């Protein structure tokens, strides 16, 4: 049976599905009934969504037999660490796990639903204590010198075995470089589904399945994903998306030593790690840009904008006036004679918005302007503007963002 088909009786030939299909895989034949071109269709479901009203398109699948769902219970998180420190995303996925646990009572399983951290590596016992302080019930630990910081191949085997033995129904990891390398290998080994970079996780109250929401097409679309028949339901979450679990006064969790898990020989030789904090973000590639104009009044005030740039993870831009005045190098100039940028967010501080400047940044997805002059042309292109003294507004913004 085809994975997707049109129920002819329900189809009214409105063609909304045709408009929705990103792959040109559906057409309305004779103006009456939609027909799917299976050679082009990727079964993404956009047409099903478009046909909400008539529900004339049906996707059926028989997934290859998955694990025994009822045997799985509880939520586990992958405790990524490097050079003796837990990755900053870990408290956040612990927080997400605790939130999920709070969303429903354990169902159909003898074991209570707990939250556990999977900790594998060399000399990791101190990290186990730290994990317990975030409120996890158990730390499943494999402390073994053969597990290197950068060897996801060995980690994947060990983690897969831990997870297969302990059977958590949900397994979360950080959407970090290591996380995005490890989790798919684990999923391929265990044969389950993995959803990357989730921005929202919630337990469906009816089916008890995890609803995983994530961006696609560069963030232009959001998709809600389910892993119905396979366990654990794996997902990664990026840093700064979920709220970190608070530290617990008197942790009651325990460390479960999983030393019996077989650790394979490593094929990856670690040579060295060179720290390289890339502070200077490339202007043209930056997702966020904080830009300053003549309104900052003095070159030293770029330091204030740099603070804002740091807190927002932005690159620093400048108007032609400030560059011509020698306040900042030409490489920061945005505009007709500078760089043309198209970031997701452009924050213009003290920039009036001369045509010259707009030419370089008006295609930004979101423009926020701060200027003391309410008639400044920048407000014509900004989606949000603050009329005020930037020396009051910017420090306040920094303060609010730092506080989280």
């Amino acid at each position: 049976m085809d994975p997707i088909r049109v129920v002819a009786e329900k189809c009214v030939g409105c063609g909304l599905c045709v408009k929705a299909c990103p792959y040109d895989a559906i057409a309305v034949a004779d103006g009456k009934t939609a027909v799917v071109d299976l050679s082009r269709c990727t079964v993404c479901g956009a047409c099903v969504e478009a046909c909400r009203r008539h529900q004339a398109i049906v996707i059926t699948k028989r997934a290859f037999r998955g694990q025994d769902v009822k045997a799985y219970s509880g939520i586990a998180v992958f405790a990524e660490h490097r050079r003796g420190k837990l990755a900053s995303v870990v408290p956040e996925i612990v927080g997400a796990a605790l939130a999920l646990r709070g969303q429903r009572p354990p169902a159909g399983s003898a074991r209570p639903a707990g939250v556990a951290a999977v900790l594998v590596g060399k000399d990791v016992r101190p990290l186990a204590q730290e994990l317990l302080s975030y409120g996890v019930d158990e730390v499943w630990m494999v402390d073994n010198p053969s597990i290197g910081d950068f060897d996801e191949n060995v980690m994947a085997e060990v983690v897969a075995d831990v997870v297969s033995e302990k059977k958590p129904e949900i397994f979360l990891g950080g959407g970090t470089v290591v996380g995005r390398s490890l989790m798919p290998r684990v999923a391929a080994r265990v044969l389950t589904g993995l959803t990357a970079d989730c921005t929202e996780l919630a337990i469906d109250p009816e089916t008890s399945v995890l609803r995983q929401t994530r961006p696609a097409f560069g963030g232009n679309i959001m998709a809600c994903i389910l892993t119905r028949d396979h366990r654990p339901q794996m997902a990664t979450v990026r840093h700064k998306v979920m709220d970190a679990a608070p530290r617990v006064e008197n942790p009651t969790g325990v460390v479960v030593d999983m030393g019996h898990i077989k650790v394979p020989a490593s094929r990856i030789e670690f040579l060295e790690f060179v720290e390289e904090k890339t502070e200077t973000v490339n202007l043209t590639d930056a997702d966020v840009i904080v830009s300053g104009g003549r309104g900052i009044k003095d070159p030293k005030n770029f330091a204030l904008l740099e603070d804002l740039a740091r807190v927002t993870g932005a690159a620093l831009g400048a108007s032609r006036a400030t560059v011509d005045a020698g306040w900042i190098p030409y490489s920061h100039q945005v505009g007709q004679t500078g760089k043309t940028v198209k970031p997701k967010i452009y924050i213009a501080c003290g920039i009036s918005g001369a045509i010259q400047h707009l030419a370089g940044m008006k295609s930004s997805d979101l423009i926020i302007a701060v200027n003391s002059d309410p008639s400044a042309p920048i407000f014509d292109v900004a989606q949000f503007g603050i009329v005020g003294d930037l020396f009051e507004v910017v420090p306040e913004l920094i303060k609010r963002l730092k506080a989280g």
Partner: protein
Amino acid sequence: MKIVVCVKQVPETANVRINPETNTLIREGVQSIVNPFDMYALEEALRVREKQGGTVTALTMGPPQAADVLREAVGLGVDDAVLLSDRAFAGADTLATAYVLAAAIRKIGGVDLVFMGRQAIDGDTGQVGPGVAENLGIPHVTDIRKIERIEDGRLTVERLLEDGIARLRLPLPALLTVTKEINVPRLPSLKGKLAARKKEIPTWKAADLDVKAERLGLDGSPTQVLRIFTPPKPSGGKVFKGTGAETVDALLTELASGGISLRKK
């Protein structure tokens, strides 16, 4: 050296949007392109071939029109290209995709090195590379920004992490996913493009591979899309007036209601 590069045909995502009224994908003017990260993978494969000798084969799984990306790869100078296309492959998530790609690489046989781009710009998952490596039982390293040397059957590589570079050495056969920092992709040449038109590109179907039917396509995909929707966008042209604290508060509230955070990611 036998090198395989897995490439993907993707929609030019910058233009994919949802019509806010009908909540359907607007696909007017959306072209299909080679996944940009794969261009870096192709370039690196060609450079390795230039240094070490051997062959480069481009591989893709997709509908028949995905052959276009293979022709582009041939235009750049790869030796061979294979299209994996079958109705049975349709609807594959990353697990099913990795399964099929691995089966094809096994069929090509004797592969020393597999290159892939770090992620595809439509799915943005970066999951297929590690999945293929697991299926093949070979080591993998992601986010490669430089191959320092290939000597005595081992690769010395630089891996780009959030806070620095890890230098690692691993044996062949192996799989690498590459970042944009690794090279500057060459432009195709006319001779290459004209040869690409005539190049025979075989299509392999499910029956040509050693695969289990239940692991293919939608059936072989544990994850399923329940629904898609457009992320809420802020309405335009709001100007806030007041004290620093008031206006910043109003701005952040407004942004939050649109699901936008200014905090560093």
